[in-house]
């Protein structure tokens, strides 16, 4: 009689994992709002508005890093164009916020200011749904998803891999940036969208609205973490890792890699779109520079620093790199890019599994 040596299927998260998850949820939903809104400003425990804005922004970046991890860390496809999906989600939300300005713009017109400036009389066709919040929520996911699907279908079907794929994604984000820079495409040219006043007819610049957006971003990040966890814990996730390690073996085992790559690529792009939509109302501006090639590369750096192929790694990486960025760009603004470059080289050479990989290694050595 054979004993059963098969490893049991693990739960979605371990007990400590769930505890940490609940703690994070409480911090985001209760502790942070209380420290910001209820604790008096001169108290040591007060969370400043600057802090809320900064952490809120970094949580948006963390969603992107998580999305990057799914496609790069797990599937082995390095995208250097995820900034496009982030910006598309941001633009979809930005269009709605522009329409919410109503007659309060500089020109007191029903049309957004930049259209009046261009002497346009009616809304262009692609602004049709910008008045509806529900449609905007749909577009935030659907537009990046559709662009990713079409782009991915042709790229993966042609079996474009490795560095070639990275290069064409980089070209894609650059092309999109040039397109959005043009005034006649109807996205506000190089100024983009800004001066937002309201969301759902509620003023946007109040502390409580800022806090609400912060909480929503945090909850979204945690929800996406669970979604990603579910995806990679399923057999689906193991097929992705198999594609990364030996794609031909995957094909000769009867799996068509196209469907798997396309699915995770599209999901990843949609997550970035949502991150962009949460980002825009918090920072109050979206312009084509979000699509600059460097932005997309930064997303990859966050994931690399934190540690690929672990889901918590990229989130940690986004916090470390952007925390350092917000301090360094104030203290030594001219050194930031050198620091970023050095960090990327250092991590690639010495920490292939990132910070999380290092911690695991240290723990493993002790045990």
């Amino acid at each position, binding site marked *: 009689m054979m004993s059963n040596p098969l490893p049991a299927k693990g739960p979605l998260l371990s007990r400590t994992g769930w505890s940490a998850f609940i703690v994070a949820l409480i911090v985001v939903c209760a502790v942070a709002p209380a420290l910001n809104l209820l604790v008096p400003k001169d108290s040591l425990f007060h969370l400043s508005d600057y802090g809320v804005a900064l952490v809120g922004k970094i949580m948006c970046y963390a969603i992107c890093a998580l999305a990057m991890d799914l496609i790069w860390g797990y599937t082995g496809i390095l995208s250097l164009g995820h900034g496009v999906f982030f910006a598309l989600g941001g633009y979809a939300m930005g269009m709605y916020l522009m329409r919410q300005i109503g007659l309060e713009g500089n020109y007191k017109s029903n049309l957004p200011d930049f259209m009046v400036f261009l002497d346009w009389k009616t809304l262009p066709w692609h602004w049709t749904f910008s008045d509806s919040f529900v449609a905007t929520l749909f577009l935030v996911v659907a537009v990046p998803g559709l662009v990713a699907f079409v782009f991915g279908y042709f790229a993966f079907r042609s079996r474009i891999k490795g560095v070639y794929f990275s290069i064409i994604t980089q070209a894609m984000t650059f092309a999109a940036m040039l397109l959005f820079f043009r005034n006649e495409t109807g996205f506000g040219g190089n100024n983009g969208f800004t001066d937002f006043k309201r969301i759902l007819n509620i003023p946007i610049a109040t502390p409580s609205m800022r806090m609400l957006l912060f909480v929503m971003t945090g909850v979204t990040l945690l929800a996406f973490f669970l979604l990603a966890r579910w995806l990679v814990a399923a057999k689906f996730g193991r097929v992705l890792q198999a594609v990364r*390690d030996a794609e031909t073996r995957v094909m000769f085992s009867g799996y068509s890699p196209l469907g798997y790559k396309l699915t995770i690529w599209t999901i990843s792009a949609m997550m970035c779109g949502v991150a962009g939509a949460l980002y825009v109302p918090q920072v109050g501006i979206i312009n084509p520079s979000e699509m600059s090639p460097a932005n997309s590369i930064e997303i990859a750096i966050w994931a690399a620093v934190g540690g690929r192929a672990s889901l918590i790694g990229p989130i940690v990486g986004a916090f470390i790199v952007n925390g350092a960025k917000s301090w360094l760009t104030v203290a030594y603004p001219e050194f930031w890019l050198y620091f970023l470059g050095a960090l990327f080289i250092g991590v690639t050479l010495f920490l292939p599994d990132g910070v999380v990989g290092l911690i695991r290694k240290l723990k493993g050595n002790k045990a």
Partner: protein
Amino acid sequence: MTPDLLEEGARRARAHALKTGHGKTESGGRAAGFSRLHTPGEVDVTHGRILYLEDVSVSFDGFKAINKLSLDIAPGELRCIIGPNGAGKTTMMDIITGKTRPDEGRVYFGSTIDLLRYTEPEIAQLGIGRKFQKPTVFEQLTVFENLELALKTNKAVTASLFFRLDSTQSDRLLEVLHTIHLTGNASAQAGTLSHGQKQWLEIGMLLMQDPKLLLLDEPVAGMTDEETERTAELFLSLKGKHSLMVVEHDMSFINTISDIVTVLCEGAVLAQGTLAQVQADERVIEVYLGR
């Protein structure tokens, strides 16, 4: 036509079938070929052949890697393929599994499935498994996960999202783990296995696919003598249930397992027969030893 005439006809047909021996064949008593409904996806081996290659040619930049190659394999057969380097052995496997498209010729799986119309994953699902020359396993996954991925099941994206191993499947997995002597390593990362163990794991993954035809490219390369011996035992036990095509250079291994050996040279069949026969063949000696 009256009922008694019909009955008389039926009686004569039964008597004829008995006389000609139909009813005892592998095809379950159906006369081969005529008026038999073909089920899509089913491998039709009623003609006694599971794989046909007919006048297949392929050239890379003017070099004819395969030159009018014709070869066929019977169901349950274990066929060994030998030949000097560059004889086209691996290219032939590439053609059968859909990795390389031939310039001309026909490749059929059974009598009805034209393999040239299918992609690599589809061919794998039809029931052709392949082991590569260099052991190819998923290094970052455990032995268990490697086998689970290879398991014959619905391999679409949605099916994989909600897949759970049922008890029959885990029994099968245990059985294969036992067969490939990796029961104790089920939770080990495949990347940590020895070269020979990786070869075994890859063979195990093929078994999980439950293929009708196995193509094995140098399965005992880098194995110890003991491992080689166990591999020979395994292949002999598979013979009859599966068809196997084994490319190998190890002559003593071939001697242990082979019935019929096919010698490939310059992309075509040079000789075919038992190992002793082909080893005595003048042309084979010439190719192997030079003029």
